[in-house]
Structure formats: structure tokens, C-alpha cells
């Protein structure tokens, strides 16, 4: 276990190193999910900017999670490090955990900033804080699995780059993550609830005391997130290969 965690840690750091060595790129990646927050702060009056900030926390992890697809693709087909690691004692679990960790490492500055701002605006208890973190991490995990499925099943470099961007846009900017669910017409709201980021954002907003939810809605939110992560894990197991078949 210790050996596996060690391998995973260094695989993650090595994967994140090009970004960590470039603070400007690191800051830019962190700021992408903040752009809507700035617009909300300037254009929309009231507490909308706080809601958008909660959305930024959820999406920072989702964006970086799905970046795993590019790591997988480049390590397998461009750099060919996966082949080098397969022919070594490194295990597939260490490799997968390591590349996932790499995405988490590059999201740390943005996460610290967004949580810092949020807590400065609205203080919450430690349990609520942990639940916000957990819902975001579940979303991140699910997106890492999505990234693994995309990165390991596409051999087309254009798709490896474009599919994650499109998915990020569809999961982040279209559903009510930055803006409240109530801003959508009632007839559209059930469709928004089909998107997992809506559930993660709703739960995070709830724990920050920005929206009210019934116990049933809270349970549905968690079950949906866990179910989505499990389904994506299953998809990854089907699509991703350590040894090529």
C-alpha cells in the first residue's frame, strides 16, 4: 500500500510538474472557473456572486478532473510513458491514482482561493465544509473516470483535446452551477437535474446556506452523485486498458 501510494504520488507530481513549474499557466487554469464569478459580481446584484463562487469550487475540481483525459492520452499515445511504466513494477492502480492526483494538485491553488473567498463571505461549520468538499470530490472523481474513458479510448488527438473542453462547457456553463436552479423555467428544471454538476452545486449551495432543500432532495443529490461516479468508474474499467488487448 505504501509503495503504491508513493508511486502514485510521484506519478502525479511528474504529470503536474509542467504546470507547477509555470505559475502563470497554473494561475490561468485556476482562474478559468472564476470568470463567470467575476461577471456575476459585476452584472448581477444581490448574493448571486456567492452562488457563483460555490459553482466555481465545484467546477474547479470537475475541470481539472476531466483534464485526466489529456494526461492519459498524451502519456499513452504521444509521450508513450504508459508503455514504459507497464514494463516496470508500477501497478495500473498506482498509475491511475497518480494521474488523478496530478489533476488534483494543479487545482489546489484555485481551490484554496475559492474556499478562502467563500469562507470570508459566509462562514460555515466544519461538518458543512467537509460535506461541500466531499460533494466536489465526488464530482471530481466522476470526471476523472470520464477523462480516463475518453483518454484511453480515443486515438484521435483532436478529439482528445476537444471532447473534454466541450464536456466541461456542457457540464459547467449550461446547467445551474453558477446561477441558481430557480432562475430556470420550472419546465426545464427536471432536465437540469439530470446533469450531475447541478446536484453537486445544489448540495454545495445548500451547505453554504444559499438555497433550501428537503431531506429527500439532499438524499437524491448524494445518491445521484455516487451513482454517477460509480457508473463512470464502470465505464473506465470497460474502456481503459493497462495491457493492450
Amino acid at each position: 500500500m505504501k509503495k503504491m501510494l508513493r508511486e502514485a504520488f510521484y506519478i502525479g507530481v511528474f504529470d503536474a510538474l509542467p504546470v507547477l513549474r509555470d505559475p502563470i499557466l497554473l494561475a490561468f487554469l485556476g482562474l478559468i472557473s472564476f470568470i463567470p464569478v467575476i461577471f456575476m459580481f459585476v452584472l448581477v446584484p444581490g448574493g448571486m456572486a456567492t452562488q457563483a463562487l460555490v459553482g466555481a469550487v465545484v467546477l474547479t475540481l470537475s475541470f481539472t478532473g476531466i483534464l485526466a483525459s489529456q494526461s492519459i492520452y498524451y502519456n499513452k499515445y504521444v509521450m508513450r510513458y504508459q508503455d514504459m511504466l507497464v514494463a516496470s513494477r508500477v501497478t495500473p492502480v498506482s498509475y491511475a491514482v497518480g494521474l488523478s492526483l496530478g489533476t488534483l494538485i494543479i487545482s489546489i491553488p484555485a481551490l484554496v482561493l475559492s474556499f478562502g473567498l467563500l469562507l470570508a463571505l459566509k462562514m460555515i461549520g466544519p461538518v458543512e465544509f467537509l460535506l461541500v468538499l466531499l460533494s466536489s470530490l465526488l464530482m471530481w472523481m466522476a470526471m476523472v473516470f470520464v477523462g480516463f474513458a475518453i483518454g484511453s479510448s480515443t486515438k484521435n488527438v483532436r478529439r482528445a483535446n476537444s471532447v473534454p473542453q466541450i464536456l466541461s462547457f456542457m457540464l459547467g456553463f449550461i446547467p445551474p452551477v453558477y446561477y441558481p436552479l430557480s432562475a430556470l423555467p420550472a419546465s426545464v428544471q427536471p432536465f437540469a437535474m439530470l446533469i450531475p454538476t447541478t446536484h453537486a452545486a445544489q448540495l454545495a449551495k445548500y451547505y453554504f446556506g444559499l438555497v433550501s432543500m428537503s431531506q429527500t432532495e439532499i438524499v437524491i443529490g448524494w445518491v445521484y452523485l455516487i451513482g454517477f461516479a460509480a457508473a463512470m468508474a464502470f465505464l473506465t474499467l470497460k474502456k481503459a486498458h493497462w495491457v493492450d488487448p
Partner: protein
Amino acid sequence: MDVVTTSGLGKTYAGGTEALLDVSLSVEKGQIFCVLGRNGAGKTTLLRILGTQLRASSGTATVLGHDVLKEPRAIRGRIAVVPQEARLQMVLSATDHINYTCLIRGMSRPDARKRTREVMEELGLWEHKDKLAVDLSGGLRQRVIIGMALVMDPELLFLDEPTIGLDPLGRRAVWNMVRKLAQKGATVILTTHYMDEAEALAGSLAIIDKGRCAFMGTADEAKAATHEGLQVIVEPIVSHDAADRKVLKPQSNEDILEIVQRSIKEGLKVTFKPPTLEEAFIHIVGGSIEEDAA
């Protein structure tokens, strides 16, 4: 002792492409073994199966005494692979690549630093230790990738076209490194398109053609298989006309002596041309080239 043996090895990809049909070969310990073949002949597929990165569809293969399908984990800690056209992270340094490979492979930080320096010095990379990969020449980049493979002192190293795109000096640097490795007792299996490379390095070689092992033996045995023998080229000392050039095929030492004596008398230049591996290669895979043309 054989470190690699294959018997009837075959690989058919999911789309139906038959990359390997029937490859049987063996590689002795400490040998530099070259795998030659045209593009798409199945060289990389063969190397990837032996390197436990790809599953074979038929036949058997053992590496270091273990079956590649049944016991890949017993093999993996003892081998290293340099994949074809592997690339570096351009914004990281040569040291980063090798040091992190050491850390990922389980070395402590001080041991990783020590081993990184050893490997980089051995490969002539230490003076470039802080340069980013983007600032290194193609030859130096390739040496860094090979360095990543060498950190754990593998018993068996697979190199898939390690000198492709390198200049003559870069190629020779890689050759020297391969020779040093073999001198230390490691076995090296490499694929190449360069016949001079195979001649310079290979203790033994295999020619793969259309998924089958068309030849296995030494370079000299491959040349003998052409049945061409020595060619003697006789031509005027100064001539710009190819028609003045005669290519003779002496059948005995007496024939050679006679040609030389006659040429000296007539003031002609004599050049001896033994059969090359390239000619042997073309002779061996020639049938299939003609089939393709037809």
C-alpha cells in the same frame, strides 16, 4: 541460456489486422539482437508482446524464463522499454525526467539523485542536466529517454527504433551506450531500419516479413544466404562514365589474384565489395516486395 524464446507467436488486432502470423525465435543472454523488417512487418508488435504491453493472440513467448501472458509481473521488474518515438515533456529538464523515473520506480530521494547523476554521466548528459527538453538536440533527447529506461539496470532492454531521426554522431552515441550495456551482461533487443546499425551492433538478428520470421542468424549468415559472394569492381582511376565500370564475381582466390594483377598492368582501380546486409535483406524479403508490386 536463452532469455527470450517465442514459438508460433501471432497477433491479430481487434479490427482484423494480422500483425504477426508465426514468429519463432530465441535470444541468448548478453546478446545484442536486432529485429529488422519493412514498415508494418510486425517488429513493434513483437517487441510490445515481449515487453508485456500487448497480448499475443496465438503461440507462446517466454521472457527471462517466464510466460509473458501468465507471469508478466515476474518479468516487468527486470526489463525496460524504450518505445518507438517516445517523447519528453518539453518544459521539463533532462534531470527531471530521469530523477522522477527513479522516484516512481521506488528509490529514496538521495538514491534517486545519486542514480540520476550516474546515469546522466554515463550517457554524457550531465553537462545538459538543467536544460529543458525543448533545448536539447534530437540525439540528446533520445539519450534522456534511454536514460529513463536504464535507471533500474534492466537485465533485458527493448529499444524500438532508438536511432530514428538521429544524425550520425547521435546514432553512434546510442550504439556505444548499447554496447556498454551488453558488456555489463544485459541483453538488448532492438528494432531498426538501418542495416549499418544492425551490422555494427547485432550479435544475432531476425528479419520479420509479413508477420513471419523470414530469417534468423548472424549478419554474416544473412549475407551468405544471398549467394552473391564477393564482388570486384574494376574501373579506370579517373572516369565519369559508369559504362567503364566492370563488376566481376570471382569464384576463387586465384580468380581474385588474376583480376588484381591484370588491373595493375592496365592501370585500373580495383575495389572489393563484399555483400552487404542491405543486399541480404532485400534478397530475403525480395519475394514479398515483388508480390506487393504485382
